[in-house]
């Protein structure tokens, strides 16, 4: 980090968060009649944003678990609320994922979005502000603000630029996630006062909260509230039904961002907040979370298998993949959690790519029904190749990114929860089933539909945005150390923190105490 001057490094994250907002303001002044200019300007903004984020990734010191590039400014001083941002090994790659995917998503809209280009781009940029902010905020209040900030632009993206049932889907998306997150707000406030009661200090500083020892019963409820909010977002089974609708009806770029980044906010939330803040409850409730995760894995895969709409299939596959992530996080060991984080990135890259792929074909044929296709390999071989690679990545073939994540997750989870892992691992089989089946039905066989006979292959622009994703697929697959190395210290610290806090909290409790008795006043 030494090569970055201090005055820069302390403002870097703030710049990272708000640069897209500046871009959005810039767009306000661009003429609506020139969509090309608006598109290019947005692309430029997101590219610059990506470049801005590079020093963070490169300068990040993987040897320490501490927050880096920290900026801390009092915000609502009387209440201990601060503007406090920083990055550590857990959030680093999620931020990078966001900045990396934005230009790609923007590029993918060049032909897909034709109406209200200006507004679309503004919403995309505002969305980026929220997403980056969520991952960088260390202050609970700040975090919540960014967390909710994301909803509005996404709501519009689905509602205005989406397909048939967009209104239903947009509202469902919004209400589902909002309903979950307001309960988290209650828990945040309760935590805030609990911190005050315990220490006499008003603060919303997450790092200070980490040091707090929360009574076990209280942990249960707070964990429940946080977990609910995050479970809606992830989405975990059975809170997932908004996802297929939202995905199907969102425009391609929206789906990409939704799948790649927004869902990660949920899993990130678990890792950053729910687990370290309430370790006893988290560990005790692991069987529940893991069960839901495993059900999600299998259920998502099974349901994905029988989908007729490609986008819906990918959406359900997300449910399955995120089940893996959850399982990994709740392994409570370094392997599982690192696998989980890596899998978040992987899912972002692979599923993002899948949505782009579906989007490409949708742009050409205006349908996403699998039965409308068949034999495309012959007419669009390059597309087929890209599709194949992404499919394999999604399936988790070794050498691609998906494998590394899934492997670490299952490896970690196997230690903590053997039987869960056994069931979860069947998801590996099922993912092959549904992905390959779809691939086969779309790409292989004879061309049955005359409309498909003259489809153009990938255009240079499409190649331009798919290529970085393919590079990432192989990069993470072949040399994941680039990514794992930087998260190691933070994840280890998190694991240790959870375990020591848990031990401390449970230190003087009677052995053989049942869970029910631990959380509820159950008399024998």
């Amino acid at each position, binding site marked *: 980090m030494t090569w970055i001057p201090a005055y820069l490094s302390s403002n870097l994250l703030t710049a990272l968060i708000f640069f897209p907002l500046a871009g959005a303001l810039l767009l306000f002044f661009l003429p609506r009649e020139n969509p090309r200019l608006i598109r290019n300007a947005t692309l430029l903004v997101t590219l610059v944003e990506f470049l801005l984020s590079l020093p963070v990734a490169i300068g990040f010191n993987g040897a320490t678990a501490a927050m880096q590039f920290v900026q801390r400014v009092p915000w609502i001083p009387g209440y201990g609320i601060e503007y406090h941002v920083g990055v550590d090994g857990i959030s680093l790659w999620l931020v990078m994922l966001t900045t990396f995917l934005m230009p790609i998503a923007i590029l993918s809209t060049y032909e897909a979005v034709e109406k209200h280009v200006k507004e679309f781009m503004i919403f995309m940029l505002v969305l980026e502000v929220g997403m980056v902010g969520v991952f960088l905020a260390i202050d609970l209040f700040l975090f919540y603000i960014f967390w909710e900030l994301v909803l509005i632009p996404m709501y519009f993206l689905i509602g205005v630029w989406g397909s048939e049932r967009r209104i239903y889907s947009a509202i*469902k998306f919004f*209400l*589902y996630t909002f309903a979950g997150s307001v309960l988290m707000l209650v828990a945040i406030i309760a935590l805030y006062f609990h911190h005050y009661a315990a220490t006499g200090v008003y603060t919303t500083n997450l790092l200070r909260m980490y040091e707090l020892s929360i009574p076990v019963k209280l942990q249960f409820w707070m964990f429940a509230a946080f977990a609910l909010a995050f479970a809606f977002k992830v989405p975990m089974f*059975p809170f*997932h*039904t*908004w996802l297929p609708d939202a995905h199907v009806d969102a425009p391609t770029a929206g789906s990409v961002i939704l799948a790649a980044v927004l869902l990660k906010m949920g899993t990130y939330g678990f890792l950053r907040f729910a687990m370290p803040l309430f370790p006893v409850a988290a560990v005790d409730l692991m069987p529940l979370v893991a069960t839901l995760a495993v059900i999600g894995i299998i*259920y998502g895969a*099974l*349901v994905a*298998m*029988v*989908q007729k709409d490609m986008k819906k299939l990918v959406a359900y596959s997300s449910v399955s993949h995120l089940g893996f992530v959850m399982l990994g996080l709740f392994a409570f060991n*370094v*392997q599982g959690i*690192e696998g989980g984080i890596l899998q978040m990135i992987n899912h972002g890259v692979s599923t993002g790519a899948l949505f782009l792929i579906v989007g490409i074909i949708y742009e050409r044929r205006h349908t996403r029904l699998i039965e409308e296709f068949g*034999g495309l390999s*012959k*007419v669009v*071989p*390059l597309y087929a190749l890209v599709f194949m690679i992404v499919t*394999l990545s999604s399936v988790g*073939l*070794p*050498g691609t990114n998906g*494998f*590394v994540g899934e*492997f*670490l997750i*299952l*490896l*970690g989870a*196997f*230690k903590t929860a053997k039987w869960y*892992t*056994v069931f979860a*691992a*069947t998801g*590996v*089989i099922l993912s*092959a*089933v549904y992905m*390959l*089946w779809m691939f*086969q039905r779309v*790409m*292989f*066989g*004879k061309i049955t539909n005359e409309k498909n*006979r003259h489809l153009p*292959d990938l255009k240079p622009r499409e190649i331009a945005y798919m290529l970085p994703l393919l590079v990432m697929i192989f990069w993470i697959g*072949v*040399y*994941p*150390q680039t990514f*794992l*190395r930087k998260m*190691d210290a933070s*994840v*280890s610290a998190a694991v240790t923190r959870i375990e020591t806090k848990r031990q401390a909290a449970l230190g003087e409790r009677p052995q053989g105490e049942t869970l029910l008795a631990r959380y509820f006043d159950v008399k024998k």
Partner: protein
Amino acid sequence: MVTGILDYIWLVPALPLLGVLLNGAIALFCERPLLLAEAAHGDEGHGHGDAHGGHHAPAPYRKLVAFIGPAVVGAAFVVSVLAVLALAARPAHDRFFVQVLFPWIQAGGFSAPAALQLDPLSSVMILVVTGVGFLIHVYSAGYMSHEKAFARYFVYLNLFTFAMLTLVLGSNYLVMFVGWEGVGLCSYLLIGYWYEKKSASDAGKKAFIVNRIGDFGFMLGVFLIFWTFGTVNYTEVFAKVPLLSANGVLTTEIATAITLLLFVGAIGKSAQIPLYVWLPDAMEGPTPVSALIHAATMVTAGVYMVARSSSLFLLSPVSMGVVATVGAATAIFSATIGITQNDIKRVLAYSTVSQLGYMFLACGVGAFTAGIFHLMTHAFFKALLFLGSGSVIHALSGEQDMRKMGSLKKHLPITFTTMFIATLAIAGIPGLSGFFSKDEILWKAFSSEHGHIALWAVAALAAGITAFYMFRLVFLTFFGESRMEPEVEKHVHESPYSMTVPLMLLAVLSVVGGWIGIPEVLKGHNYFEEWLAPVFAQGAAGGHGAAGAHGAAHHPVALELGLMAGSVAVALCGIGLAYYLYRVRTNKPKEIAEAVPGLYDVVLNKYYVDEIYDFLFVRRIVNGSIVLWQAFDAAFIDGIVNGIAAAVRGAGDGVRRLQTGVVGNYAFSLLLGAVLLVGYILTR
């Protein structure tokens, strides 16, 4: 010079990878535009497209591809040979070399470097893979020359070679797994090479998915290994076996669990019962692919893996028993199916399954060397058989049904000769490679402490059946009356040299391949066993004594010779029966089939296993999933969600109705509020 070559061992997988990249570039930039243009063109003039398409002067890039594809594998073979020589130059206990390329996955205490390990076992494998692989690549250049997507084919084939080499060269279970899945992928791609054919793409998918079921077990096995040993590196795992089993961490149960899980992987990859179903379907791929992947190399990966983990397997008698039983059962089971099949490649496919059963039987009785030995010889003769059948099919313009062949001996002399040699080898005729390896397995099945007379009996019977159906194949194909379609018969021709030369080379290997492992009872010297001894000695030392390798010592020589003679006799009986039925009384088979119609149908239809699986699993799962989706997701969960929304709206509608618009009612509401409020305060 020779010693230094070890540091370049990475070249062995890297060269095929280079081939992938080069051919890939060609496929993308040279072949793709041509294919696209053709597709568009062929579209306009349907009828004429075919007539011209095949006879265009070959584009220049095809020559390049035909050179690069085999050349990289050949180069890899050369490096392999040099490396193995370098290894051989070392003293026996030091024949071991690990090259760490880069750290691959590290998380917490877990570390799996991308590292290659050359030791006697992997050296056998790389020689087989690159050697046989090279020949098949060469053969392919001829066999596939009429294919439009020529470069794509070689991309896949090179990629396969790369993956297979990674599998065998990896120094830990995870790198092995990379290759393991990689070969599965290539198998998928190659089976589905003619993707426009539904059966081909179906078969590819089936192969991949069934393999995945095996991988599932493998992966769980790896997890268990890691959490037991704290590492997945071969050397560290095997080195810790004695220590951990001494201090009770590695109990027999855990060893059993680990090995059975690994064995699930092996079952999937090596097409054993119950996961063998994909292999026969895999014959949808081009024939050289069948030769390379579904006979010589990939399917033997399971055997390699079991042999590699021998020291773990030896800790668990249960696992050994399971391996042996599954192997023997598969051997006899698929052999019986082989009898009835009419598709020349399917016969070979079931034969492969059966032979793989032998190899597992060997491993299961602790005769890992024998297993690997048979693996090697099988690679030679089965590759040869497949290539030969490919030559036949090539000659007959794609005809695969043996009932439409016959009397090809005169048309295809080289093919016939080489295939006949291979048939003799597989049938276990003494002196040929198959004899030595198969016989060692039979002997070990009988004599080893893990063995059993029943295993021997089953294996011997299977050997007889093998001989029978292989000769049935030969007789139906090359002898007797011609049953070819007249149109086909006109074009019958011997294959080009690019195809026949590999056939001849493989024929030589099928003959001499066994000579490096002649048992001592035949006054030979088992060089092969000696070469592999360091690898399996490790395991034996950790296991229950040196049973596997030296079991023979306890039994009288006469017994061994006697059994050998017996197995030869069984094989001869099989051949004789085949001669009788298909040369002498050619209408007898039909009569037999009609005599026992039920049984015949069952066997002909492969015991209806596919259908049973389909009924039991596939359809259940698909239908169940539809129910899950529509009943659970859409109706139940969304029902709740939308129900809540509707309930809230309903409540809203109810509440709004209170707002009647009449002031008196409003006043009443106000009054009621006041009365209740005061009432609460008074009664509090």
